[in-house]
């Protein structure tokens, strides 16, 4: 979506720092006013760039002679598309530079990140409005909770009863089927109090995705998310250990779902010929993404730590054997194996999480999502 400068005709860009539309050529500033169009849909001309394959959505009757993304004059008219207008938009408050700095700062702190990644060259940074459904949900429940009080021999079970209700306003759920749910969930939370009525001028200079998951398809997920939040909050009202819900009778109702666009920066860089895309929440600046670890650093750290801890563990165990403090060697060996198993299990879980996160960052889906997001409003 592109708007043009009334003074020099160049494409305007929304400047989050000034909350204005700015012309990068002559520096003119324009208000991001509400669109006067009352319709629920709007027509956009979709242009395709034959050089980079990008699709560009342009509002109204204007035409474009160059691609806004690769700068090549290889853009041709593709089709007219009718798009549903979102009800709300959350304008970018984090600028492109701030997003890049936030990522650099995060990566610099990483001990196991190779220097090549820490000093990455930005291949492309794109501000994309992601479609979300905002659910209003009424949730009430009558809950019995159990917990424990005391310790050792005095530990005993206690029970609690709560009746409570909760009105969730604008609970966010990603409405794009193309962006991985894990990525969008990790981008959250957004402060929906800062939502503005949708105004097409906010899209200028940014990419906009359009929803392809209807709100009805997300009802179960919305209820489940509300349930998790409600249960966590109700457990907080109880002063005991190991609190669990033992009986409940929830009543929940989805009141409405509004369509909105929420901002995110997508930064892509290359490492060992592969593209990696890290996301930044366009409102809070939260950085989301996993990067590959330096295997030699991990191996050295593992061996040195292993040798040091093994040495002390050997001394302690040998001392226990010498002082005859181990009554049942078989049980002792079994206990050591159990503890070792727990250590290894936790380690595997952590590495697995990092692997999954890196797969998301390097996924072709995310990369192509960024490339394709010109289509939209």
């Amino acid at each position, binding site marked *: 979506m592109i708007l043009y400068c009334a003074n020099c005709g160049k494409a305007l860009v929304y400047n989050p720092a000034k909350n204005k539309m700015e012309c990068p050529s002559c520096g003119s500033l324009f208000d991001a006013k509400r669109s006067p169009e009352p319709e629920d849909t709007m027509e956009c001309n979709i242009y395709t760039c034959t050089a980079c394959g990008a699709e560009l959505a342009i509002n109204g009757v204007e035409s474009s002679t160059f691609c806004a993304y690769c700068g090549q004059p290889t853009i041709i008219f593709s089709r007219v598309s009718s798009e549903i207008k979102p009800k709300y938009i959350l304008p970018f408050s984090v600028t492109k530079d701030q997003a890049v700095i936030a990522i650099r700062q995060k990566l610099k702190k990483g001990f196991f990140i190779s220097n090549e990644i820490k000093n990455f060259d930005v291949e492309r940074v794109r501000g994309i409005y992601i479609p979300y459904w905002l659910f209003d949900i009424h949730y009430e429940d009558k809950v019995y909770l159990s917990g424990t009080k005391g310790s050792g021999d005095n530990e005993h079970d206690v029970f609690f009863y709560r009746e409570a209700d909760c009105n969730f306003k604008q609970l966010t759920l990603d409405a794009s089927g193309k962006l991985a749910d894990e990525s969008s969930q990790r981008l959250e939370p957004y402060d929906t109090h800062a939502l503005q009525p949708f105004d097409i001028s906010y899209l200028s200079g940014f990419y906009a995705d359009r929803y392809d998951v209807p709100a009805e398809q997300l009802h179960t997920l919305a209820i489940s998310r509300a349930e998790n939040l409600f249960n966590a909050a109700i457990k907080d009202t109880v002063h005991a250990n190991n609190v669990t819900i033992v009986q409940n009778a929830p009543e929940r109702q989805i009141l409405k779902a509004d369509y909105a666009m929420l901002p995110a920066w997508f930064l892509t860089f290359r490492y060992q010929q592969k593209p990696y895309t890290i996301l930044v929440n366009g409102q809070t600046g939260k950085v989301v993404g996993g990067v590959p670890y330096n295997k030699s650093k991990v191996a050295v750290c593992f061996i040195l*730590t292993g040798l040091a801890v093994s040495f002390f563990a050997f001394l302690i165990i040998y001392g226990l054997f010498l002082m005859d403090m181990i009554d049942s060697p078989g049980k002792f060996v079994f206990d050591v194996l159990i503890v070792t198993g727990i250590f290894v299990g936790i380690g595997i879980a952590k590495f697995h999480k990092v692997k999954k996160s890196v797969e998301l960052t390097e996924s072709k889906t995310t990369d192509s999502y960024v490339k394709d997001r010109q289509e939209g409003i």
Partner: protein
Amino acid sequence: MGFGAFILGNLLGFGFAFMLVGILVKRSNDHGDSKGTFLDFNSQLLHVTVKRDDVCDPKDLDYIASLNNRK
């Protein structure tokens, strides 16, 4: 005895090292994992209307209710 302690010490030591390195790699290389929820920007949403502490086990209540029903 010494060899047994050596084997057990190595198992514990390298098991612990594996867990520690896993935790450190996660902290170093993976960002944005489940930090923050909807409630960060929407506190005080929960309205507790009935609050009773130290009540009976609900299973006992069910049992009493079933006895009353029999009568």
